[in-house]
């Protein structure tokens, strides 16, 4: 999350709106956003309706949700989907920014 904050301006320059979803409740989100001064949208999804809609996996053995990223173009089409295999399996921002450049050039 700190990495996303660090590169947020680069995403903004590429017309990318970052939306973070998670199973925590609104209060937990609000506290975390305030503490970390996060500049993007945070959506609590305690009922996990959207998390399930997008197929975020829950790994019972590792006691947690696997990270996932979906990059959607301006036409609402999913152009990049990454489902993490473990808690640290997150694509680097450089890869996501390069993909955004590609979308914007089409």
């Amino acid at each position, binding site marked *: *999350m700190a990495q*996303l904050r660090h590169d947020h301006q680069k*995403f903004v320059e*590429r*017309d*990318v*709106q*970052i*939306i*973070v*979803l*998670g*199973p*925590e409740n*609104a*209060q*937990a*989100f*609000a506290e*975390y*956003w305030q503490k970390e001064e996060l500049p993007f*949208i*945070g*959506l*609590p*999804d305690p009922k996990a*309706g*959207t*998390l*399930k*809609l*997008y*197929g*975020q*996996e829950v790994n019972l053995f590792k006691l*947690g*949700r*696997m*990270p*996932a*990223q*979906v*990059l*959607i*173009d*301006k*036409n*609402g*089409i*999913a*152009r*990049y*989907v990454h*489902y*993490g295999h473990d*808690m640290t399996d997150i694509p680097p921002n450089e890869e*996501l920014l390069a993909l*955004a450049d590609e*979308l*914007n050039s089409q």
Partner: protein
Amino acid sequence: MPRVAINTPAPDFELPDFSGKIVRLSDFTGSKNVLLVFNRGFT
């Protein structure tokens, strides 16, 4: 568990943000790319 396929329409959703403001994925169609980050928990 359903998964989102590349080059297909991303499922629309509607959720209040932590301040109560309704956010829809379709709000951004036509104006912004969107990066959805499914968080693994606040650490």
